């Protein structure tokens, strides 16, 4: 009898733990949402010094050095979508007032949309995301008003839709190039499996493979600057692809991506 009771008890306990985790997660999400806009205002990069103690010389000297080359930055909300959101904001920013480049991206977007439907994706929902993506993109055709872009990316509706669509592009690209990328997967049997667990769900954090796939899919190089406790004088830059000369730079601190601007 004891063991039976025990089993039942655990059964409910698991349930309770799930419930507590969910509640805690919601609380954390709320707190983060209150503290940080989806994409923050332009600030000086050396304000990051305030986040580290005076004794933390590794970080502080790296930040000081970095701020000489990258004066400004924008923080993004740490909700697991930060890489995609940071990339999208900065990419859209470079497209502002350039209808030719916007049209090129639109062609690419349509290509991926038809690829997705060939992969068996429900075109009803894919089109929903694509339409918002294109709609927001077209607003940038004849403007260089950064406030418009800030508005698009801080409205969770349009901002999240853009993130979903980029995730779908990455998923599509990985599935269509799985021969090459399959070698990078450790715990997943198939690329489809990996994409539906690690790429397509919102709030799932990005890894190298996401970055490589996105930059290859859109043919837009990105420079990631790694700022960590590694024993080096400078933050480590890494371009994707390796031999590229990117215009878009993203600062990586363990677990998080922010936008930075080269002088």
């Amino acid at each position: 009898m004891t063991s039976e009771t025990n089993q039942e008890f655990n059964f409910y306990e698991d349930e309770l733990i799930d419930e507590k985790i969910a509640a805690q997660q919601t609380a954390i999400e709320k707190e983060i949402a209150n503290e940080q806009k989806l994409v923050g205002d332009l600030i000086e990069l050396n304000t990051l010094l305030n986040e580290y103690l005076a004794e933390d010389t590794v970080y502080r000297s790296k930040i000081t050095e970095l701020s000489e080359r990258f004066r400004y930055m924008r923080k993004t909300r740490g909700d697991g979508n930060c890489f995609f959101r940071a990339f999208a904001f900065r990419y859209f920013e470079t497209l502002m007032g350039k209808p030719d480049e916007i049209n090129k991206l639109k062609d690419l977007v349509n290509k991926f949309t038809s690829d997705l439907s060939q992969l068996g994706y429900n075109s009803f929902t894919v089109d929903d995301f694509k339409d918002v993506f294109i709609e927001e993109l077209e607003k940038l055709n004849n403007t260089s008003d950064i406030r418009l872009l800030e508005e698009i990316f801080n409205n969770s509706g349009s901002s999240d839709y853009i993130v979903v669509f980029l995730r779908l592009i990455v998923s599509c690209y990985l599935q269509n190039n799985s021969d090459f990328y399959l070698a990078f997967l450790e715990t997943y049997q198939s690329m489809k499996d990996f994409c539906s667990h690690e790429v397509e769900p919102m709030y799932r954090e990005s890894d190298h493979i996401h970055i490589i796939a996105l930059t290859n899919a859109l043919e837009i190089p990105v420079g990631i600057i790694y700022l960590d406790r590694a024993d080096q004088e400078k933050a480590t830059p890494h371009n994707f692809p390796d031999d590229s000369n990117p215009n878009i730079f993203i600062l990586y601190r363990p677990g998080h991506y922010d936008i930075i601007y080269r002088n």
Partner: protein
Amino acid sequence: MSFNTRSPAVKRLLKEAQELSQSSELFYAQPLEDNLFEWHFTIRGPPDSDFDGGIYHGRILLPAEYPMKPPSIILLTPSGRFKVNEKICLSISGHHPETWLPSWSIRTALLALIGFMPTLGEGALGSLDYTTDERKALAKKSVSYTCSVCKTQNSEILPELTEKSNEQCAEARELASQIQFKNSKSTEEPKRQSASESEPSGLVRRNITDSDGQSINFANNVNRNENLSHQRTETVRVESTIRQSSRQSLDKILLIILFALSGLFLFLLLRRAYLIVDKEPFSI
């Protein structure tokens, strides 16, 4: 109804309502007249299963963040597969709960639900493992269900099943292999229906390990505890009490029972050891 049409969730749901406005042979779903974020649906039990001929009605609750966050589903017609009036949540199989893909839709959710019905409940919360006969009896009975909120009659709403739906049935099975349904903790109290409506009467459960069975065991434990301590509180009513009382207090009671039982066990063990060592503790 007037909506903030700038909200993507609203736009998306209006589109989905449009897409699903024609009833298919397998399912039909539409939003309530006064709330775009609550839908009512009717699904057909999959042919070649215990649910063949059954027609089941339920609610879909959509979060404000839809489609970034998943809808939850509440069944109202007893099926012997899912508990009625309990939120179930869908998530991709074999992983973290709450993994939902924004490219899924209400249609995906309902087809997956149909495909999921013949799978084993295996004691998962919110699941029921009734016998084939019980499920068949419920399937027959389900046709006469009429929803008190949206007035949908199960017998009227879906067109006759024909071969046209074979493909959709296959799609449902395929989706069910990717998506699973889990009971989720409801923040909203489900509308209680009368006992006779929500629970099939006169049916004996075969499998004591199903979730209802567990509720009964809990209730028994509670009763025993009361008898042991000679504290008489109000009668513990099986099932409905358990379901409605908060889990926390139930847990406390269980913890106390556990402690009491293990204490008793320890005492008996020590007493036994004492008896063996001393040979003649209490001479008769």
